[in-house]
């Protein structure tokens, strides 16, 4: 799997990580181009169903990132999100979904370098894990014909 290029979807909040990723760019820090960034108003808006959809659509890895605790633009969005992530991640793990492929992080608007580093390490770890074939196989299975017999 030498030529495997991981597809990674990053769900980030508008106020911190998106601005942080912007800073990475304006600071001319190079980082892996495998990541597709999706901008959300707040980490609290990142629905877990979107994460599942990303896997179903062929993502090999997912990043979720937003403001550090106490820094939420809406005061508490990231705190609520954290509770949900704790439960969701545990459930995914319990159902055998590879949680090593979902990277959660806090990246502030000033942490351009941290963003580059986290993307690079995530890409490297997903590259090592290989494509998420189990989920892709499931998602691409044709629907069995419905019979009335």
């Amino acid at each position, binding site marked *: 799997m030498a030529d495997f290029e991981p597809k990674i979807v990053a769900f980030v909040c508008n106020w911190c990580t998106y601005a942080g990723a912007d800073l990475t760019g304006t600071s001319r820090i190079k980082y892996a181009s495998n990541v597709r960034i999706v901008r959300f108003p707040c980490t609290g808006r990142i629905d877990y169903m979107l994460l599942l959809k990303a896997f179903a659509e062929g993502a090999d890895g997912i990043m979720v990132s937003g403001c550090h605790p106490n820094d939420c633009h809406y005061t508490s969005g990231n705190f609520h999100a954290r509770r949900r992530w*704790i439960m969701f991640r545990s459930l995914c793990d319990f159902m055998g979904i590879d949680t090593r492929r979902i990277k*959660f992080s806090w990246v502030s608007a000033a942490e351009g370098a941290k963003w580059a580093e986290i993307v690079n390490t995530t890409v490297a770890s997903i590259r090592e894990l290989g494509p998420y074939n189990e989920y892709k196989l499931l998602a691409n299975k044709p629907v069995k014909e419905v019979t009335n017999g």
Partner: protein
Amino acid sequence: MDDLRKRARELLEIRAVNVVIGYEQGTSGRKRAFFAEKPEDAEKLVFDSTCIQNLASYVTKREIRDKGKIAITATLPVMRSIIQLASEHQVDDNNLLVLGITSESRLIEFSNLAEMETFVHQYQIEIDARHREKLEKLEKMTPAERWKFWIDELTPCFKCYACRAACPMCYCQRCTVDFNQPQWIPVPSHQLGNLEWHIMRAVHLAGRCVDCDACYNACPLGIPLNLLTKKMVEDAKSHFGGYQPVLNGEHLMSTYKPDDKDNFIE
């Protein structure tokens, strides 16, 4: 349960309530939900350990609410469900009379929900030993084994949504799976959609499930889907402390603590 029949008859005679929700003898030795609206209906009411359906799922139904004053036969899980529903503003304290049944099959009537809450809070929600063992067995497996276990279990699911219908907490007028713009979960029975449905159900019940097993009892295929909600109960307990439905107060998943502990966020 002569007490129950007698009291139900009384309540209906004096028109203190318009309907008493209870159980009656069903087919194949099973008990089913029964709605007594006339005093003589009360004779049909039965109660024993096979009355496992969670009747709280009816109190949010429009057909029942429209009847006005309701009395409901409630075991401990049903009482917990009612408290949770009340805290979510789904039941009206003034329109609901709870005919509680203790674990010793004693009838205990509550004049209001606060009184019932005091009774319910004497008992903790505990996952029983048999299920705890099952959870631990799964937790000890490798992720690949767990994945196989769940895909095998969920593949036959044809999404009849009996689990949803049986659950008192699944009262949304329009469930996410009923939406088609966007179609979050594909309609046909498909492994992906089945997996997504069961994840969604468990997440929506996180912090709210009272562990009554109604979903599992309703499943025509016997899918152990209650293991997912039990896992959520265990997690909520271990991560966020106390797990008990309360009339007034925040739910575990609609609140937070600034120092909630996680071990995976960088």
